[in-house]
């Protein structure tokens, strides 16, 4: 999948990845790869501007934790984040069903 296509949906994918459990940036990337069977591959650093923006928008919260002697920033969804994810899921289902209907 081209990076440009993936970037358009990165916000929703990151929210969905964090819906299961709080995670750090690397964990989010791994989740996206695993769940997409390695289809979603993007420059890993680009997930951080997205995480920071979603946090500024109040959809995520983060805090420093300590793991294996390293400082690690862990992100989790807020209530607004869960609501935004529900809206994005609905939009995606409507969109993908329409695309399927046209492409079939």
């Amino acid at each position, binding site marked *: 999948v081209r990076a440009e296509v993936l970037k358009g949906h990165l916000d929703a994918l990151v929210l969905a990845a964090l819906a299961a459990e709080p995670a*750090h940036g*690397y964990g989010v990337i791994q989740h996206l790869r695993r769940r997409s069977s390695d289809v979603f591959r993007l420059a890993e*650093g*680009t997930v*951080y*501007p997205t995480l*920071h923006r979603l946090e500024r928008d109040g959809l995520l919260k983060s805090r420093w934790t300590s793991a294996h002697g*390293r*400082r690690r*920033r862990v992100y989790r969804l807020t209530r607004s984040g869960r609501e935004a994810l529900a809206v994005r899921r609905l939009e995606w289902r409507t969109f993908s069903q329409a695309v399927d209907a046209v492409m079939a």
Partner: protein
Amino acid sequence: VSYLAELQRELARVGIRGRLRRRILDEAADHLAEGEQAEFGDPRALAQLFADELATHETTKVAFVAFAALAAAGAAFAAAWLGIALQGWPDFGSGAFLPLGLLTGIAMLVCSQVAFAAGLLALLRAWRLRHTRAAPAAEIAVLARRTNTALACGATAVLAIGTFALDNHAAFARSYVLATVTGSLALVVPLAAAAFASRRAAAVRSGVPGGPGDLFDDLPVSLPRHAWRFCLAVAAVAALATFAAGGLDEGPRNAVAEGMLVVGCFAALGRRLGIRR
């Protein structure tokens, strides 16, 4: 040069400093301890991605904060102006120090109106960009110029009315002079704080290409894109309002002066404030 050192340099290049830069570097260090450096992406592109989004967010946020500070200053300025009107306007040359009276008079009349117009223009653009992820650098620059002009003129107008009250203290009640001088000094503080925040936001350099846009892009309604005709219409409305306020004695003179002031400011600041291209 290590990847993190290069990322640090690139973040500094785009104006990301302090706590945020440390946080980005700490997160990158944690990530690279587990992942591949090659997979993390080009440090220059990553730093620019942060800056593009941050510049838009910070400049827009500062514009809203500045407008709130200007609204408070504007309300206090209007109250002080009303106080002078109720006590009777002294002659601009009757103060303790003649040039000061003239200067403060001009500053009160001109700067207050420029601050109002520039603040309103900044608010219009900030509102339009409020959900934009990364606006063109040129659009952000215009927004910052509007905000800075509004803050500078707002602070000048507020200080001018305080100075005017002090210079003409013999013509006003003691309590009025004290309240106006103290109030004007106090109101400069939030304006200066907003100006400081604006300066910090401007340090972050967006690299998004695109034009600066103008007033007609910012307006929520579609109008014909004739900047000078728009200016003349605004000047006519301002002149009419001034005429109505001045009555038959002073109205015509004040209306002409007001109309000329609007057109003059448009000619001098129109491009800088992104009203015309």
